[in-house]
């Protein structure tokens, strides 16, 4: 009896100290490769099984283009200083074994993951944020400069259409059945609800908790969208007024039902979910010397792991970031869950 009591006390004590986790973490057992796009014009590669921070500048990254910054050139139709003549990667998606990367100069580059062959930049829009495969198999590129969503055919490698939605759109997600789409507008802090049949905006979701938005993702339950509200800027691109958070919208009522407030160093830009729906993978900026991949329990919203996406590699290679005030900034993720 004494041994049982001692053992029980030991377990309680260890659990209280956080040294004994009674349940396996949601992030355990992931298998896949995450490609995280950054302003440096290259994508960091993270093996989700090992969660080893990329450190080999040759093997742990895919170079697409030269560096750039999202806050230079045109944003929402407004002119900002041009530091570089475009470049910088921002969002990508995988179709047929190829990464299709939307760049900050509005071009698209196709990269064959197997062979490493890269296409020439194809002019499509003005400045791309995210790239998402739509229900029709086309890739939807959201443009931060002119507010259009460009629909691109990855087979014919041609633009199919251009949907005028907002001023600086960044992400798109569809409901199951594709009756509605949700488009996040970065600079305006608005989520546009689009009737997908008519392609007309039927509602604008605004909230004080959404001042500067990034990607948007349908949750595994197919009933909610998670909006990356990093909120680096306040209303009208003014000083910050809100903490970084993920805003959850119920797609049945098109209202906000939850706000997952994040630590100050987790400025969420993209969220993707594991195939089992248990883990949310969050690409986040720290605005320090690193950007990170955060693994969060999708149910409890507890942050379970943080993986360096930039600093480990930069330090190993002796690289100093010269743009974006010296902070390596990432944005969108593409995840290949097969390998």
């Amino acid at each position, binding site marked *: 009896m004494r041994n049982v009591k001692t053992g029980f006390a030991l377990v309680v004590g260890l659990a209280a100290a956080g040294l004994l986790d009674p349940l396996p973490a949601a992030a355990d057992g992931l298998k896949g490769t995450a490609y995280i796009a950054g302003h440096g014009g290259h994508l960091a590669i993270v093996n989700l099984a090992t969660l080893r921070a990329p450190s080999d500048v040759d093997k742990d990254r895919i170079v697409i283009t030269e560096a750039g910054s999202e806050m230079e050139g045109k944003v929402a139709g407004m002119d900002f200083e041009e530091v570089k003549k475009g470049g910088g990667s921002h969002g990508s998606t995988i179709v047929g074994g190829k990464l299709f990367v939307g760049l900050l100069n509005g071009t698209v580059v196709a990269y064959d993951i197997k062979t490493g062959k890269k296409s020439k930049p194809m002019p499509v829009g003005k400045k791309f944020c995210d790239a998402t495969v739509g229900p029709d198999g086309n890739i939807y590129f959201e443009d931060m400069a002119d507010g259009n969503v460009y629909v691109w*055919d990855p087979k*014919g490698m*041609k633009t199919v259409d251009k949907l005028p939605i907002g001023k600086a759109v960044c992400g798109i997600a569809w409901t199951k059945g594709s009756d509605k789409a949700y488009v996040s507008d970065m600079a305006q802090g608005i989520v546009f609800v689009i009737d997908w049949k008519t392609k007309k905006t039927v509602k604008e979701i605004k909230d004080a908790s959404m001042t500067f938005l990034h990607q948007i993702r349908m949750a595994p339950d197919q009933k909610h969208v998670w909006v990356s509200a990093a909120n680096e800027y306040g209303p009208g691109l003014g000083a910050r007024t809100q903490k970084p958070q993920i805003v959850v919208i119920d797609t049945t009522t098109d209202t906000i039902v939850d706000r997952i407030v994040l630590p100050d160093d987790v400025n969420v830009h993209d969220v993707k979910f594991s195939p089992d729906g248990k883990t949310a993978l969050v690409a986040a900026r720290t605005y320090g010397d690193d950007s990170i991949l955060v693994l969060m329990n999708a149910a409890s919203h507890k942050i379970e792991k943080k993986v360096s996406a930039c600093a480990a590699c930069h330090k190993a290679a002796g690289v100093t970031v010269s743009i974006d005030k010296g902070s390596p900034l990432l944005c969108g993720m593409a995840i290949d869950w097969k390998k």
Partner: protein
Amino acid sequence: MNIPYVALRNLRRNAARTWLLLAIVGVVSCTLFAATLFLRSVDNALRLGTHRLGADVLVVPESAETKAKAALLSGEISQFSMDRSVLDQVRRVEGVATATAQLFIKPTKFSCCFNVDMFLVAFDPETDFTVRPWLERNLSRPLGPDEIITGRNIPVIAGDSVPFFGTTFRVAGTLEPTGMDFFDQAAFMSLEAAYRMADASGSRAVRRLEVARGAISTVLVRVTEDLTPDRVAIRIEHDVPAVKALVSDTVISTVRRQLAGLIHAIVVISAVLWCIVLLVMAFAFTMIVNERRREIGLLRAMGANRRQAAAMVLAEASMLSAAGGAAGIALGFALLLGFKDLLLLHLRLPYLFPAPGQAALLTAAALALSLLTGLLSAALPSLSVIRMPPYEAIRRAG
């Protein structure tokens, strides 16, 4: 007191100063007026030309994009073609309301009779919306198989005969000027007439015209109301291989954007010049008032009231600036007439002088600005005149 008479006399008293001030106002007026008139003429031509074209989108062979833009904007003659099947493909694209084909032909120059750079445009009389409206308004009948319509810059009149590649055509009429060489230096015929001309050129012409029956150079498109031209252009480029869809507004707005830079520079320079003129005139009139302190004091002592004394100064300034403005406007006109062709050759832009009403409005505005300059520059000196006690003015001047 006859204020204008007194003001004029005062101006004549110091002729050198008067002429110098007049010249300063004249130079600024000339610069501003000539630049505004030139840019307004270019904009006029772009607007009329786009309206005349009537098309929202122009579909051309992918390899001919640059040539097509040059033809549209600066009337640079070029010949390019694609198969007529492109027209049918374009008509099937979502968002296309109507589509019509045109063929561009570059004729040889006729140094003996018509030393003009012109080109031939063949259109489909059944579906055309560029030339047909003119035909319906002015000819009230279809164009005959051996008839052409010419642009305003071609030195022919209705009834004249003009040979092209061995086939003689009769001029049925002349289009109104648009300022765009694409229209003003073109001759329009039906597509069938062009194909027959090409077929016959082998035996009749010095040089055979190599145009296949059914070849077209461009498809002009009008879009449906639910889609914007740029979205239809994207669809056309996606659905129809090897073509480029040029949105008319985008081509024109690109030129306008380039012009905007020029306009911005002119506005800044003119604003700076105008400020300088204002300051120089204000300084000059302050000196004038100081010089004539005694005279003004005497006038006041003899019964002229403050208002009359101030009005005299303002009248001098107004006359000077109005005369300078008028001279500047006249010089601006003359310079524009003299250098317009050189400018257009260098800038490769369309040009159409504004309608008389618009030109008159611009002239009036320039004159008004000159007058305002005079009044503003003399405002402070005339205030000092109002405040000047007559006795003090006479005593201090002595």
